């Protein structure tokens, strides 16, 4: 059974169809990347999946439960879904360590000492322990994104959503972050990542979903989608993305 199953998901804003019946599956330990042109609905899809945006219709089955039904414990659901944002979204009044321990202490009700130990363990995984007492303003973009990833990971979620995790970074920092996400991929962390970055997509995906105008146009492994797909829209998109890099 899939960890996450999306069935015919539709989202309309006013009368505009943003998502036109998306269906996809994500299994435990699988890493899937969603790509597509700007405005194709990728980020809306991700936000619908943790109910930050309420879908208009369709079903989202997470861990066997239909989470689009009324009465779902959204707070509990979100603790099970880590979320990494394009612009990091670290709490700027808190140190790196406190950014990570806040959720552990307040949501997981972990004792302060255990929360700090967990934070340090996770920071160690991304070589950020020495920065634990710094504030977000004292970090580079790549370091901020590594902390944001750790903040999501520390909650031990069933899946991590990444929304354009490298789009706000220069090439050097992008490489840093891709290395970290690639480590997660090799550790079989379940991930769903939205990106424009073909380099990232290639190194962290089991398969890539290509979205066009609010619908899934293709799904395949990176090599076939990038270089050898029968659909001309897909070929055109990946040609431009890969050439761009």
């Amino acid at each position: 059974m899939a960890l996450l199953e999306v069935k015919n998901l539709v989202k309309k804003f006013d009368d505009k169809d943003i998502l036109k019946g998306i269906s996809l599956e994500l299994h435990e330990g699988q890493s899937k990347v969603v790509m597509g042109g700007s405005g194709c609905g990728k980020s809306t899809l991700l936000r619908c999946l943790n109910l930050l945006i309420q879908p208009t219709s369709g079903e989202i089955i997470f861990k066997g439960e239909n989470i689009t039904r009324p009465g779902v414990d959204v707070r509990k659901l979100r603790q099970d879904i880590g979320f990494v944002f394009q612009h990091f979204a670290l709490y700027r009044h808190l140190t790196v360590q406190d950014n990570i321990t806040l959720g552990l202490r307040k949501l997981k009700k972990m004792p302060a000492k255990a929360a700090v130990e967990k934070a340090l363990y996770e920071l160690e995984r991304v070589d950020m322990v020495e920065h634990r007492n710094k504030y977000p303003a004292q970090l580079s973009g790549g370091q901020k994104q590594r902390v944001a990833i750790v903040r999501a990971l520390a909650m031990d979620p069933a899946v991590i959503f990444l929304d354009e995790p490298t789009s706000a970074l220069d090439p050097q920092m992008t490489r840093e972050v891709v290395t970290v996400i690639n480590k997660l991929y090799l550790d079989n962390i379940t991930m769903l990542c939205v990106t424009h970055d073909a380099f990232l997509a290639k190194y962290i995906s089991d398969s890539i979903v290509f979205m066009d105008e609010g619908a899934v146009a293709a799904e395949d492994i990176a090599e076939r989608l990038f270089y050898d797909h029968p659909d001309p829209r897909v070929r055109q998109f990946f040609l431009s993305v890969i050439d761009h890099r």
Partner: protein
Amino acid sequence: MDALINDLIAFSPQIIAGLKNTLLLMVIMSVTGLFGGIAVFYLTLSRTNAVRTWTERYISFFIGTPLLVHLFLMYYGLPEFGIHLSAFTVCIIGFTLNVSAYNARYLMTAYHGLDKMELEAAQTQGFTHPEIFRLIILPQVMRLSVPSLTNQVIQNLKDTSVAFLIQFPDFFAQMQEIASTNFQFFKTYMTAGLVYLALVSIIVIAARRLERHISLPGFHI
């Protein structure tokens, strides 16, 4: 000048009592106004339209009308409806309602400068709206609002001088009493002005220390 000093010495018990009243009023309204301001600010973020609308009306009314009108309404107006409040009670209620409106506005201004992605991040982590307010929004807007909030404390101190108009025996009321006795209006009121200036200077020094104490990298206050 000697005559004024003699008068100040002669009136010193009343002056000290007036000064105590002024400081008491200033401290109470600054504290109640701060908590009131936080509560009103919280209501401005309500997801219920009616709550937001009425909160905005409250703020507009108290910022848009003179403080003296609020005090007179309560002190001289309410007795027409059989409600008699002491001058001190009227001062506390009137000033608190007024200061809360101003403080709420300062906090709202700071809130507009927050990175809203942080709030979305907190939401995705599973925090509820009250938790996001307490753990993410409030610590940041309070830091960013320190200059405005301390200016309001200074304003509170100066505004206590209108309390004598509803018979509250504050410091300025005592100085007026002296002036009407010795007829040295300029010197007496100048002395009153210097006392206010000294008190304001103490608040400013304390505010600077507070700003330094709570300043963090990335927060430009």
